[in-house]
């Protein structure tokens, strides 16, 4: 039929408004269903396995959302034809998004919020039958506001807090249902102000196109007296309740509505002054205000105390980055009260900057449409009402998002439609209901508008506030994010370690020394030969890292040794590094056990190394500790005068004057000994030990022994030999140092020969040194003779006592065990 052609040609954008609303609602439903599907699957992604318990409970919320929105859409077509087609879908999307985020954070609150949504949307649908001229609101403005004030006043007497404790008592509760009267009070105040100002003749206007009649200032002030009284009463109530966030909002709303009605910017200035003055007074009077403002000005001073919330919120936003971890796969619960005040941080962590900007854009859409509704409103009451409601929704969003982002001081208000809370949900949806009523395109043309500047300025200010939130979100998520995430109070790293298998530390024959056990989400580190703890160290979310766990951390955690693309892909998919890599050390577990049992009960250190290639087979430090019991023993360990946490073998510095004099009677101490006893991959920080004051570490002593066995050639010490990469198998790690000719070959050989044992193929020496405080220590050095045909070994034993025989016995037995396997 040719008559259909123009319709077919017409662009999809020229749909009637009900079709537009339907289309946007379908898109919102796609979003909600995708979100719910991700949430269901998220445990599989988190634990990287299909054998997980999936989450299904939130689908109940999805069903309620879908059902109620379908009903609301139908009802709006019937009762509110020609209403604005953007408002309902945007609010529906925000509500569903918030609902699922709350389900994700806590199924208990999710269930409650779902029931609230059911009730609130039922009221919303019923409310569509109200007459769209809203005359009843206008007529009963005082009644409405007074009952709101009375209800709020009741909380002073009967108030409670669902969370219990010493928190502000802002709720009226009965039988597990709580209502926060200050939320609907906001709405009632806006209605009252709009009705009063529309009825007042202060700014009465004549026919269109004429300039305002001049008004004397005293008249204006007189006209405002009742509103000042009522608003002041409401403010007093809120301050008495310590609901200071809402009080701030009231003050801003009052200034905004009076500005809209009067067109005089001085009311805005007065409002801003009022807020500043209130802030200053609050800073002086209330601890809460002082705390919030201090935490805002400098959160980094006290990140674990007063500004814990805001720092954790910023960390969550930084953790989300650009794309987010995906619903159900981040850790938004690390921020206190994530389902209410900090829901924006939770959304930004799991949805990333991408979704956070989308959320802000949705709020901008609501704001822009709301003010358009105000401009098209058929009379002044509805115009002021629409502008006030929009200012309320947008202003409250800016206040709490700005608070989450440290753009503004934190105020405990909710994010409209999104945050947990029945009162907040009710207020938001009732605001939307009124906006939809006002938006109906009726026969009546828009009311005359004397001056459009206040509306332009208000929308400009609100949109600029939202834009500032967007920019600051980008700043924290992308620009400052990587720096923030390295902070020690970022628990995400420790949590990721419970989900990603940490690589094992192996001995030279791939026998495990330290492994992670358990299943994803509960991985625990275990040192299998606990006496090695001073060498292997620990990796603890509370106490940090030490030893090999610290120096090999990037391999063990899987952030090194993989191709860059793999790392990026894993981070994108799971927000975690790939599984950690196993690292092979040069230690020999059998010899290590021998050394540890020999040293048990003594203070001292033992090092056995391959004199040819510098591989360390044994590194023992006593007294030792058990890294598996770190949390139980920590207090006693750090107070123990015997310093069990300290790795004496590598880091201990002991007097060695006698020892060196025995070896080099003419004082020709090899210059190379001044080398710092640096072991690659063990610890970067070592005390300096030159031989000017004749001090050696056990490691240096062992290297000296190796040089004597190897014709003066000191090998480069080596503790970690290879890492098992998925692409290339075992990859040998580069040696940190080069071998060095420490002694002249003849001198070394002569020294070895002079110390040679009669019965064996080894040389050995002992000496007793005295420290500056008079304490005695025993050194034992030994090694294979230079002409020994097999693998050549060198050993150094240090005892913090005078017992040369014991030192010689231990040293020689280890040397023999190594040389005759």
């Amino acid at each position, binding site marked *: 039929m040719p008559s259909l052609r123009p319709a077919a040609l017409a*662009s999809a*954008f*020229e*749909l009637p408004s009900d079709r*537009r609303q339907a*289309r*946007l609602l379908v*898109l*919102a439903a*796609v*979003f909600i269903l*995708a*979100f719910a*599907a*991700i949430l269901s*699957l*998220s445990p*599989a*992604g988190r634990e*990287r396995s*299909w054998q997980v318990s999936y989450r299904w409970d939130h689908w109940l919320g999805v069903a309620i959302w879908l059902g109620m929105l379908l009903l609301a859409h139908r009802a709006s077509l019937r009762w509110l034809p020609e209403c604005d087609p*953007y408002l309902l*879908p*945007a609010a529906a*999307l925000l509500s569903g998004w918030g609902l699922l985020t709350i389900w994700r954070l806590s199924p208990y609150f999710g269930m409650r919020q779902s029931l609230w949504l059911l009730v609130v949307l039922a009221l919303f649908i019923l409310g569509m039958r109200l007459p769209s001229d809203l005359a009843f609101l206008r007529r009963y403005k005082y009644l409405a506001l007074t009952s709101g004030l009375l209800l709020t006043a009741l909380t002073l007497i009967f108030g409670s807090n669902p969370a219990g404790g010493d928190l502000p008592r802002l709720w009226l509760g009965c039988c597990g249902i709580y209502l926060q009267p200050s939320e609907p009070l906001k709405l009632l105040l806006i209605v009252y102000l709009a009705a009063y100002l529309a009825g007042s003749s202060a700014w009465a206007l*004549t*026919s*269109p*196109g*004429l300039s305002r009649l001049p008004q004397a200032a005293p008249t204006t002030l007189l006209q405002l007296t009742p509103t000042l009284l009522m608003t002041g009463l409401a403010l007093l109530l809120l301050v008495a309740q310590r609901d200071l966030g809402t009080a701030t909002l009231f003050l801003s709303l009052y200034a905004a509505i009076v500005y809209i009605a009067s067109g005089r910017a001085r009311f805005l200035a007065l409002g801003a002054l009022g807020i500043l003055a209130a802030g200053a007074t609050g800073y002086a009077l209330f601890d809460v205000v002082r705390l919030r403002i201090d935490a805002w000005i400098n959160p980094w001073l006290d990140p674990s105390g007063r500004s814990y919330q805001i720092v954790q919120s910023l960390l969550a936003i930084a953790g989300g980055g650009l*794309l*987010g971890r*995906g*619903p159900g*796969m981040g850790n938004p619960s690390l921020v206190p009260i994530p389902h209410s005040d900090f829901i924006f941080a939770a959304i930004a962590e799991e*949805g990333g900057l*991408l*979704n956070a900007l*989308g959320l802000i*854009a*949705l709020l901008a*859409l609501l704001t*822009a449409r709301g003010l358009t509704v105000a401009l098209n409103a058929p009379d002044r009451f509805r115009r002021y009402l629409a502008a006030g409601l929009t200012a309320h929704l947008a202003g409250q969003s800016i206040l709490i998002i700005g608070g989450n982002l440290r753009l503004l001081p934190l105020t405990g208000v909710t994010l409209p439609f999104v945050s947990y809370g029945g009162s907040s949900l009710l207020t938001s949806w009732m605001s939307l209901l009124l906006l939809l009523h006002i938006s109906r395109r009726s026969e009546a*043309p828009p009311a005359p508008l004397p001056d459009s500047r206040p509306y332009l300025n208000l929308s400009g200010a609100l949109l600029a506030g939202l834009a500032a939130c967007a920019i600051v979100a980008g700043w924290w998520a992308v620009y400052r994010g990587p720096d923030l995430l390295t902070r020690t109070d970022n628990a995400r790293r420790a949590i990721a370690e419970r989900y990603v298998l940490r690589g094992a530390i192996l001995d030279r024959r791939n026998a495990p020394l330290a492994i992670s056990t358990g299943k994803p989400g509960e991985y625990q580190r275990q040192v299998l030969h606990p006496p090695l703890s001073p060498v292997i160290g620990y990796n603890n979310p509370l106490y940090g890292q030490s030893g090999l766990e610290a120096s090999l951390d990037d391999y063990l955690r899987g952030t090194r040794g993989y191709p860059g693309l793999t790392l990026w892909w*894993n981070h*994108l*998919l*799971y927000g975690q590094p790939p599984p950690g890599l196993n690292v092979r050390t040069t230690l020999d577990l059998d010899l290590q056990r021998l050394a540890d049992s020999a040293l048990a009960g003594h203070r001292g250190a033992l090092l056995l190394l391959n004199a040819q290639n510098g591989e360390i087979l044994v590194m023992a430090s006593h007294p030792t500790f058990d890294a598996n019991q770190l949390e139980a023993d920590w207090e006693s360990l750090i107070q123990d005068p015997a310093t069990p946490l300290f790795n004496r073998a590598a880091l201990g510095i002991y007097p060695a004057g006698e020892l060196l004099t025995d070896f080099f009677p003419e004082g020709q101490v090899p210059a190379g000994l001044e080398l710092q006893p640096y072991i690659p991959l063990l610890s970067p920080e070592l005390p300096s030990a030159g031989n000017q004051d004749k001090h050696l570490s056990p490691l240096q002593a062992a290297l000296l022994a190796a040089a004597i066995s190897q014709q003066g050639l000191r090998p480069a010490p080596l503790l970690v030999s290879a890492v098992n990469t998925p692409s290339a198998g075992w990859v040998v790690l580069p040696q940190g140092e080069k071998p060095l000719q420490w002694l002249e070959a003849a001198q070394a050989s002569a020294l070895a020969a002079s110390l040679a044992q009669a019965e064996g193929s080894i040389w050995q020496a002992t000496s007793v040194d005295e420290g500056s405080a008079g304490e005695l220590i025993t050194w034992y050095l030994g090694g294979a003779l230079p002409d020994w045909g097999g693998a050549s070994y060198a050993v150094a034993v240090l005892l913090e006592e005078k017992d040369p025989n014991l030192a010689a016995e231990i040293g020689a037995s280890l040397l023999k065990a190594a040389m005759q396997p």
Partner: protein
Amino acid sequence: MSGPILLALRLLLAASLYVFLGWAFLSLWRDLKQRGASLASRQSPLLALTSTLASEGVPFQTRLPELTLGRDPACEFPLEHPTISARHARLFFRQGHWWVEDLRSTNGTFLNDEPVSMPVILASQDHLRCGQITLLIEIEDGA
């Protein structure tokens, strides 16, 4: 593995959000364009003014939505006469009608001999007197 599936869903999530926003803003923009176009095409009806001053009797015709009468040559309809103020009166088209408003002229504006103290609607064949000049109003039909 679950990662790629979840990533696809996450991309779908972001896509649906931005399609929602994109579609909403695009259709708003189309609305705006359409409204602008329809407003631009809605012209004020042709207004013809025949002044007693112009001896040749050729009417002044305009489709401007708003014009000022006065002695000032910058006025859209200049009238050179001593009884006319520099900016004497304003004619404008609003809500489907032509209106006249006196701009506090010295000698006043009269519509069919009634003084114009507030904006009033003009009709065809009305006589508008400014000072000693009388103008015959003719408005095109069918607007």
